[in-house]
């Protein structure tokens, strides 16, 4: 159907995934729960640090479009790290480990982890 909502006949033969609706397979990683929480995500985050930095940059650009003064990101960088200390163990330590391994400020990692709660409105 070439007008919204672009419904179509039920698809068949899509699996195994291929073609234009398939953008790629997902890579497997291991998180060792025997490690201290601050170290669990280190290997994964050092591999993905550029991708997470790109994603955070887009969030900042969108935030700047809403509040051009940059005060929203200032708030994120100054206030959200304080929330991390209130999170239950081991999540507080894990978020600090993620920030450290990725080089992304802790407040911005906290924002990413709170996204789902915030956007339920």
């Amino acid at each position, binding site marked *: 159907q*070439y007008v919204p*909502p*672009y*419904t*179509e*006949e*039920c*698809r068949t*033969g*899509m*699996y195994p*995934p291929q073609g*234009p*609706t*398939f*953008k*790629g*397979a*997902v*890579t*497997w*990683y*291991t*998180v*060792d*729960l*025997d490690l201290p929480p601050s170290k669990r*995500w280190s290997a*994964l*985050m050092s*591999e*993905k640090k550029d*991708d*997470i930095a*790109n*994603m955070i940059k*887009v*969030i900042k*650009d*969108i935030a700047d*479009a809403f509040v051009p003064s940059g005060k929203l990101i200032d708030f994120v960088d100054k206030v959200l790290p304080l*929330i991390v200390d*209130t*999170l*239950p163990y081991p*999540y507080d330590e894990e*978020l600090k480990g*993620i920030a450290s391994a*990725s080089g*992304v400020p802790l407040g911005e*990692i906290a924002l*990413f*982890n*709170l996204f*789902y*709660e*915030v*956007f*339920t*409105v």
Partner: protein
Amino acid sequence: CTSVVAEDSNGNLIHGRNLDFGLFMGWDMKNKSWQITEQLKPLVVNIDFRRSNHTVFKSTGFAGYAGMLTGMKPHSFSLTINERFSMDGGYIGIIEWLLHHRDAMWMGFLTRTVLENATSYEEARSLLSQTKLLAPAYYILGGNQTGQGCIITRARTESLKPLELNLKQGRWYLLQTNYDHWKAPLFLDDRRTPGMKCMNQTLQPNISFKTLYDVLSTKPVLNKLTTYTTLMEVSKGKLESFVRDCPNPCMPW
């Protein structure tokens, strides 16, 4: 999001989901895509959480996000979250948290805690139904035995109208989008009707990874917000995920 838990004719449970995220967060006019959705795609990872060299649970998530939105405890249960929009939304929970009312759980962290610690479908169901939350949500839970599948509609403090698989009533699958199952979906965002149409065409004896992937690949169940598709089979401990794209013409949500 669209989540489906279905039981085949042999009593085997298959659980699948499309994770849709990024609505109203930067529309790229040139590429006709949501900016955040596109930026999330390279962050999609499958994770094997291990303790003492054994798998505790498996999940599909985003690198940098410590909570869980999709996961499975092999041979026990599978679990997905769909976002539930409400005026009594997560921001109220966050404000309460800032005001030192900290008896509620963060949604993604509860999912992770359940995947890590619950040992059965029943225990997972009880924890997901009874734990106070910061934000409303839909939990879609599948088990390892016939009839073990339910939708838990969560307000922040209570569970509303749980819906379970019921083969005697012909309910061999449950399909949840982002609307309460006892209400009609928003007419501008009806993924439930086309999804159910495809499930009904598939028929119970034919349900498998292959046919569920077909359902989750049909527009508008597949849309511009769809980041990944995950398929899970608890009895075999099998989890597969794929990053998705929705070529034009395609609904923005």
